């Protein structure tokens, strides 16, 4: 069983007191080729499922660009890997201090000598495509838009270009459980559908089609179904000229609520 205090204790064991109080940053003490290789082994089994075997990104952020949204210092990366990123799908881990530094070393190696992946399109034009296609009806960017689809405010920092492209053309190819839909009929005959936010043995919580938070008791339902597909239509073949590249460039530009200049 994972001990809840373990990451903090391990961190305390390897990080000097000055760094713990934020007065200094700490460089990775384990950067040899052996350390990189050891970090790579851990990476393949624990990180690659989201960040890709080569760090190219996917469900998780692209790690080959050398840009790290939650802090680019070694101790920032150490903290991110150890504690995870609140409010995202990135969990914490339970490795010891040396192993964590080895993962940092491997992650650093992914961006050595490689140019950042660049989107080909124009993000400003892409914003117009986003609006014309009505994407904001279901997606939020910095608090503006609908809520039935995933919040896209920092999708550019979280997803690779390939993943963004796939999400637009084949939205049902990779749908996370928090984006599954539910439809239900109460014993009184009322139909309710919405985004499944939480479910337990006796109840389900959803954001309904009118964007109301609704909790249903399963005992009150005559029908209850979960749809694991995306409710977004596939946009494959729906774009003209460079619209698709522009849209992807716009999505890639969305780096978080504090840095979305193209989103204004």
């Amino acid at each position: 069983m994972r001990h809840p205090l373990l990451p903090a204790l391990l961190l305390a064991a390897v990080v000097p007191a000055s760094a713990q109080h934020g007065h200094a940053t700490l460089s990775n003490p384990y950067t040899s080729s052996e350390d990189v290789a050891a970090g790579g082994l851990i990476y393949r089994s624990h990180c690659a499922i989201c960040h890709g075997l080569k760090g190219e990104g996917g469900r998780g952020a692209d790690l080959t660009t050398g840009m790290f949204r939650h802090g680019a210092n070694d101790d920032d990366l150490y903290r991110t890997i150890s504690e995870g990123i609140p409010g995202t799908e990135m969990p914490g881990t339970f490795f010891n201090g040396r192993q964590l530094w080895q993962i940092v070393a491997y992650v650093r190696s992914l961006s050595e000598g490689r140019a950042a992946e660049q989107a080909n399109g124009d993000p400003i034009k892409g914003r117009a495509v986003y609006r014309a296609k009505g994407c904001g009806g279901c997606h939020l960017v910095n608090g503006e838009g609908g809520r039935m689809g995933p919040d896209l405010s920092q999708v550019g920092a979280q997803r690779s270009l390939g993943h963004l492209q796939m999400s637009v053309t084949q939205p049902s190819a990779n749908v996370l459980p928090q984006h599954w839909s539910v439809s239900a009929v109460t014993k009184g005959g009322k139909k309710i559908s919405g985004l499944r936010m939480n479910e337990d043995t006796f109840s389900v919580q959803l954001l309904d089609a009118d964007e109301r938070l609704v909790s249903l008791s399963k005992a009150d339902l005559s029908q209850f179904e979960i749809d694991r597909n995306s409710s977004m239509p596939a946009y494959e073949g729906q774009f003209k000229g460079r619209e698709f590249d522009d849209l992807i460039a716009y999505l890639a530009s969305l780096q978080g609520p504090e840095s979305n200049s193209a989103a204004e």
Partner: protein
Amino acid sequence: MRIFGLFLSCAFVLTAQVTYERILNADKEPGNWLTYSRTYDSNHYTPLDGIHRENIKNLELKWVFQAASLEKFEMTPLIVDGVVYAVQMPNDIVALDAATGRRFWEYKHIPDSKTNVCCGRVNRGLAILGDTLYMGTIDGKLLAVDAKTGALVFARQLVDPTGGYSLTVAPLAVKDKIILGAAGGEYGIRGRVMAIDPKTGEEIWRFYTIPGPGEPGHETWSEDSWERGGGSIWVTGSYDPELNLTYWGVGNPSPDWNGDVRLGDNLYTDSVIALDPDTGKLKWHFQFTPHDEWDWDAVQLPVLVDREWEGKPRKLMLWANRNGFFYVLDRETGEFLHGNNFVKVTWAKGLDKHGRPIKIPEAAPTREGVRVWPSVQGGTNWYAPAYNEKTGLFYVSAWEYSSVYHKGDPQYTRGNRYVGSLPRGVWPNTMTDVEEQQGHGAIRALSPETGEKEWEFKMTGVSESGLLVTGGDVLFSGSLEGYFMALDAFNGERLWSTNLGGRIAASPIAFEAGGKQMVAIAAGNSMFVFGLRD
């Protein structure tokens, strides 16, 4: 099955959920709790009468929210159309179903480790405006979070935690602004109230609770002591829409227990300030404890009451202060109308005709220590008092207790404690404190006209619980012992109580779920919700 109806319906943009008008007219929807004190007058009264004196014996536990946190649970939740928005200490937000407690979403914020807070890594609650929740964090940020999904809308650094600043107060949404203030009075901050643009997080105006050079009140600080003069904002203010004034209680001067380094009255510490919410301009102020040397912040809710005063209708403000005196002020002008002590007081002979305390010089802290009533925790503290028009009584959780106040030599270093010694006897413990001066707590009902005690419910220990008075004539409260209790609002007799097994340091609230009245209180590390047996 594809749920096409779902997608089609999202093409329509919905109107904002909680408008300023809804908060302004909160009494039209008593089943909700849309702002820190439910109403802008901070009466901590609910018209709900489903639970009343006759049926309260049928109260039972409906659900529990167990926080994944061991911090003190001082938060008051919001209730919006069947959803409970609560803070999990220090700064996570959860959205729960009001009927069952099941979770819709959770937003996690890990505060920066460079954070100093004097009195626990706590938070007192949220504001909501439109579809967005607003929370101050102990590392000095204002977070805006989507109420439907829990997604971050923006994070704005308002104050610098490395300078001792933090944000623990529940913000107040007034018209098109989010108003809140900074804490950190034990770390030599310069306090402030700020109005924030709810869309962008930009600061619109700022009122310094410690006036700078050239500003009125600056002369009440010797030398450069104003630069680190304290004046925290710990508790949410009130708002009078007719006068267009928002009222905020200001905390103690820094350093707390040595006034020699900050000679003068030290405005606007330990004061209530009346601000124009559109501009942040000061309309009036009233200082309860000039040149405070005991840490008696004006850390209470400004309770706004309209009632007759000497035969004429008048806009009043009722205030039981940490310094042990109960005050009645005219909230249009700040005029002092009445004041008397509501607990034992040995630091002042009384109040003069302007409400200024007539201090007893021997009560000032000394190097050897001097015992003074009330204690450093005060005659009362930050937890909500209550007022009920029907009974006409002002209810307060009172501490009859003393502290020995010592004077030390404060040394200011940026971001660190700056207090000047520490009083002894901070925390009464009825099982270990064998001194003659052992104190006790009480819930007291005061007459606003006379300030006299109409009744009291005496407790063995003390209480950090706020109060809630209801349309069912019930007064809810709690205790550090862990009891959640209901008293008869007319005479203080105990109607019902239960042991929740952890100290209560929060204020009870009431709301409706499924058309039925519920009452919620935080105790220990959990929030408990009660309703009548079906």
